[in-house]
């Protein structure tokens, strides 16, 4: 067992296929950013809205494989969500909390701090929208 990939199969698959990495521009795009490269993790989310629907999600991230995989996983899930679900407190209901992400993806609990940066960036992006 110790012999297995320490990332786990699910994180590995996400990490190797970061299809939603990127930026979004133009109208209806909300951005949120958190962390700093100098601290080891930096994450930016861009959401494109169409009416009440999240039409596109992109992220950019500097961080460990668990961080990148979580960004990709969230981007996949968020695409197609209803806007209301993304309002500040509701966001956790829509996509769960970092401990839930860690559990779902098999991420070791020592990495939780890094997932908080991901959550922060996402909250920022969602907050922009709901506050605007």
């Amino acid at each position, binding site marked *: 067992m110790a012999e297995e990939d320490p990332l786990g199969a699910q994180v590995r698959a996400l990490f190797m296929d970061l299809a939603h*990495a990127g930026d979004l521009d133009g109208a209806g795009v909300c951005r949120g950013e958190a962390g700093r*490269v100098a601290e080891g993790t930096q994450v*930016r989310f861009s959401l494109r809205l169409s009416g009440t629907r999240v039409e596109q999600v992109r992220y*950019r991230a500097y961080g*460990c494989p668990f961080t*990148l995989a979580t960004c990709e996983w969230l981007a996949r899930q968020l695409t197609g969500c209803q806007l209301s679900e993304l309002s500040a407190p509701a966001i956790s209901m829509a996509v769960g909390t970092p401990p839930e992400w860690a559990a779902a993806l098999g991420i070791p609990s020592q990495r939780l701090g890094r997932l908080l940066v991901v959550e922060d960036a996402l909250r920022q992006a969602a907050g922009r929208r709901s506050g605007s």
Partner: protein
Amino acid sequence: MDALPLYLDHAATTPVDARVAAAMAECLTQQGTFGNPSSQHLYGRRAHARIERARSEVAGLIGATMADVLFTSGATESNNLAILGSVRSRGQRAHVVTVSTEHRSVLDACRQLEREGHAISYLEPDAQGLIEVRQLEAALRAETALVSIMHANNESGVLQDIAALAAVCRRHAVALHVDAAQSAGKVPIDVAALGVDLLSLTAHKLYGPKGIGALYASAGQRAILQPLLFGGGQERGIRSGTLAVHQIVGFGLACQIAGVELPGQAERLTRLAQMLWEGLADLPGVLRNGHATRRVPGLLNVSFEGVQGESLLAGLSELALSSGSACDSDSDEPSHVLRSLGRNRELAQSSLRFSLGRYSGEQQVQHAVAAVRREVRRLRAVAP
């Protein structure tokens, strides 16, 4: 099962040479050389004879005589025996000079000496990884009992100018210990010509087995070394414990082979490492760590700006390499060796140590270059 990753981590450990494995296997049969070398009967005498042959092979690699070679369980033990053994045997409080970028088995032995009341000075290498003669000279005190400086650094591959440093030690009549775990068999070493008093070796970095090494100790040092292990009186009473015949036979043969193949391999591995560097150097934000030419053949350490180290390594799962010394990799701290070479936290963490070996070839280097370029680009594209 998938194909095994390409092994580029020879500085962590090497596979055992097939010839060495065959010689070891002979000692692991009922008809073979399995006796206890302390036994007086034929099995024991055969084992003893094989050990003495291996001792001369090890001695031969470093220009020592057989009497100077004490078998240990590896370079960790050799380093501890050299440092703790030579300082503890002095009654008074002594002073030791070492370098901040030594292997942990040197640094932690020195820390133990500090706990025992001795004083240690830690020299800081320059941004190329080198210790200058003046630096060492300035650190010496009347009560300095030992200087311990490694030959090739296990992370950067930088080679110290041991001959020059040894001359300083001789001039001040201070004993010099050299950790040659990473250099033995890769660059020529002649303890007599260098004027070294103690020198640590380990078999598993030169295609021999893990768990066996040696300490070269001059006659003067042998007279004063306090053992770490007391008992049956093997190894002139300095290192007790039944001698591991198959291990020693393997170590001896590995040294013999390394010595014979050294010139060719050194040239070849230097060339391959240069090819690897050239394959990466035109990427933006790529920095080679440590002196460009004073380095052990085959080892290249590179930092990649704007790429997180752990992701880089994880993305390169088709390559087996390390982002720091394998021996240090349990900790999350960025390498103190790379920090001392002037790299900040991120650059230290985003470094890869490529260590090529006897079975690495051009094709593998090209494969590695392509993979690293791909992954650096991919992760940079993802980064904010």
